[in-house]
Every structure is written in structure tokens, then in C-alpha cells.
């Protein structure tokens, strides 16, 4: 290899493929990879060199590209509802808005800790809901809303399309036509946080 090692300082911006050190010197941590004993950066980020623990990592400067993983909190729009399950178009993973979308599935048994009879009491098409990924079996992202912070965060009236407002604990009402609807809402429903 013709390229020379440069002495790197913590906080310096590094690019994919830039050498950070050798494995005899440091333990490679997040944002790095090892090839032939040399530690390289694999993202654009700031190099963090911990001389005390002999660790080197790269803190990403870009909201990293990501796909849903088990445990990630996602936000999506309900695209279809059947009595047993709903399909969700995920457009946000963690804090990252996606340019495309992923499809997730929410089953009635994963909505609440208690028994839920029908998916129609949980969400309707075009609602925006926050959920957690619990499994990626069979090439599908299975979601759950079994938490106070998870559930519908935006819902629209199935009669006139107006935005529903919270009435009581789980009741929603349309301010335009007065229709009452049922949803599994998140604790911060209607606060504009997605």
C-alpha cells in the first residue's frame, strides 16, 4: 500500500476508507471495520480516539442510512385494515425520515396488553401511528403498539375527513360533524409529534 498513515486526532472528520490505526494499537468500535490488521472508517464522521481504553470509533455526521430492525420505533401511515390486522407504510425510523417506505404489519394480538376484538377499533386507513418493530420473520416487519407511548398519533374522521380530537381516555370526536370514533391512541395524541 502506498498511502502513508497520518496521525489522527479525536474530533477530526474522517471519510469512508480512511485508515485510523492498526489493531495492535486500538480496539475497533462502531463506525469502523478491519481489513488486514488495519482499522478503517466506514462512514463520514468524526473520529473518536479513546487513548485510555484504547478504542477507536467514528461518530457519524450523516443520519445514517437505515432499515427497520427489531426494537426500532417507527412511524407510518395505515394503508389498509382488516379485522385481524393492519398494514402500515413506515416513513420514519427513529429520527430519520425515509425517502421511500417500508411495509409493516400490525396484528390485533399485538395492539394492547388486554384483549382487542377487532382491528377496526384500533386504526383506520390514513391514520398515522407510532409502533415498535418486534420481529422481521417471513420478510415482514411485525409491529406492536403495546405501550402508552405507542399507537395512533393522528387520525381522521371516517365520515367527513376532519382531524379527530381527543375526548376522554380513548374516545375521539370529530369537531366538524360530531362523529365519535375509537382508536388505540398514543399518550401524546394530536400534539403534533410524530
Amino acid at each position, binding site marked *: 500500500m502506498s498511502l502513508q498513515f497520518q496521525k489522527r486526532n479525536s474530533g477530526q472528520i474522517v471519510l469512508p476508507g480512511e485508515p485510523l490505526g492498526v489493531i495492535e494499537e486500538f480496539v475497533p468500535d462502531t463506525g469502523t471495520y478491519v481489513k488486514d490488521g488495519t482499522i478503517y472508517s466506514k462512514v463520514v464522521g468524526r473520529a473518536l480516539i479513546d487513548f485510555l481504553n484504547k478504542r477507536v470509533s467514528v461518530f*457519524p455526521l450523516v443520519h445514517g*442510512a437505515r*432499515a427497520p430492525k427489531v426494537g426500532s420505533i417507527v412511524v407510518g401511515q395505515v394503508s389498509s385494515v382488516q379485522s385481524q390486522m393492519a398494514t402500515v407504510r413506515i416513513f420514519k425510523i427513529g429520527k430519520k425520515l425515509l*425517502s421511500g417506505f417500508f*411495509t409493516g404489519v400490525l396484528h390485533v394480538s399485538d395492539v394492547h396488553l388486554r384483549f382487542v376484538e377487532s382491528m377496526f377499533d384500533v386504526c383506520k386507513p390514513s391514520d398515522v401511528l407510532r409502533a415498535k418493530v418486534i420481529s422481521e420473520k417471513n420478510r415482514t416487519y411485525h409491529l406492536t403498539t403495546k405501550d402508552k407511548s405507542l399507537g395512533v398519533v393522528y387520525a381522521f374522521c371516517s365520515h367527513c375527513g376532519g382531524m379527530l380530537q381527543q375526548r376522554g381516555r380513548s374516545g375521539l370526536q370529530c369537531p366538524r360533524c360530531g362523529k365519535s370514533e375509537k382508536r388505540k391512541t398514543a399518550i401524546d395524541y394530536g400534539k403534533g409529534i410524530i
Partner: protein
Amino acid sequence: MSQKTEKLIDKKGLRLDGRKSDELRPIKIEVGALSNADGSAYIEQGKNKILAAVYGPRELHPKHMALPDRMVLRCRYHMAPFSVQERKSPAPSRREIELSKVIREAVEPAIFVEYYPRTAIDVFVEVLQADGSTRCTSITAASLALADAGIPMRDLVVACSAGKIEDMIVLDLMDIEDKVGSADVPVAFMPNLGVITLLQMDGILTHEEFEKAVNLAIEGCKKIYTLQKEALRAKYVSVKEVEE
């Protein structure tokens, strides 16, 4: 077009645009030129003007094309109808389909494809103005756009061409040199790992000439790499770390 029989290299050893044999065309690179894409880059190399955009990782449709253990990299190289002297039909030509494959295979070794199973990454390369060696310029831009999208990569990929015109090995061919000259060797290179990811040869070269052309192209790649790094750094110098 009438084929002019002018000399490609003058008595002083300079080429038509006044370059020496081992000189690159002037290069200007901008990272993050498009706000809608996850990552993008714009590059001007001489009269070449190329825009690259990256979208993804995202869900793959139709779903049966998805791979269970890795992501699919899709690449589309397209020349704008106004990019060449005679209007080019916007429909993908044979050449564009081939170049899409060439670019994909040149950047793929740099990407950790196994990190995002069942997803796709789309790379769109749009040639706004073409003046020879567009495949090389496209690869340089595409790898920058991928890095800008935050996709984990082993290294950046740089590409540069060398060729033979009038018995001389020269760097970075432009359109007329490519057409009139006798050989063209595009090389894509990962500068930190020292790996060649694309090597083609169009024309006839002797063994020694070929070796010389490859080495010259790699030297060119290293020069472009410093510009690539500068451009990528320039975008992020002002950016603070992202909070998780």
C-alpha cells in the same frame, strides 16, 4: 459530422485543450447538490457535467427480487437528450444499459451490502453534458453520493481513464481523443485499499503500453481522490454531530 484529420498532439507535446499528456481536465465537485435525495453529488470534469443521486435503503418492489442476506444495488445511467451534439433519444440505449451495469459493478465492492438485507439502494446518474470518459466521472460521482447518503462503505471509489493517441499514452481522454485515438483504458480504484474495481480496454495496446496506461490512470485516480475528499469534507465541516 465530418471527421477532421487534425493533430491531437501538437509539436510541443500538448493536447487539443492545451493539456500535457499526464494532466487531468479541471474538476469541480459538489456534494449534496440535491435536497430530496438521501445523498447526491455533482461533478464537472472538463466539459462533462454529471449529477448522481442515491435513494435508500428502501423496500424493493417487486418483492421477489429482494435478496434475503443482502441488499440489491440498482443503478441507472442516463444521458439527457441535450447532453451530446446530436439529440439523444431519452429512451435507454444499449450503451446506457451496459454502462449502468459497469457503474454498479464498479461501486458495489465498496459497499457493505450485507448490512441491509431485503432492501434496495437506487443510484441515479444523469449525464447533463458529455465529453468523453463519462463512465469514469459517473463512478466518481456515484461513490460520493453513496457516502453522502451515509451508507457504510469500505472506501470511496475513484475512476479515471487513460488511453493512447498518436503513439502516446495520455490521461483522462476527452470525447475527440476517445473517438480518434487508438485505445481507451478506464480504471476504477479504491485508493486506501489499493483495489481496482473496474478495468476495461477498448482498442489495441501492447503489453507495456497497457501497463503504462493502467499506472497512469491510477495516478489520475489518486489526484481525483484528493479533490473527492475535499468536496466531501467541505459539506460536513459545518455540520454538527447527529444526535441518536
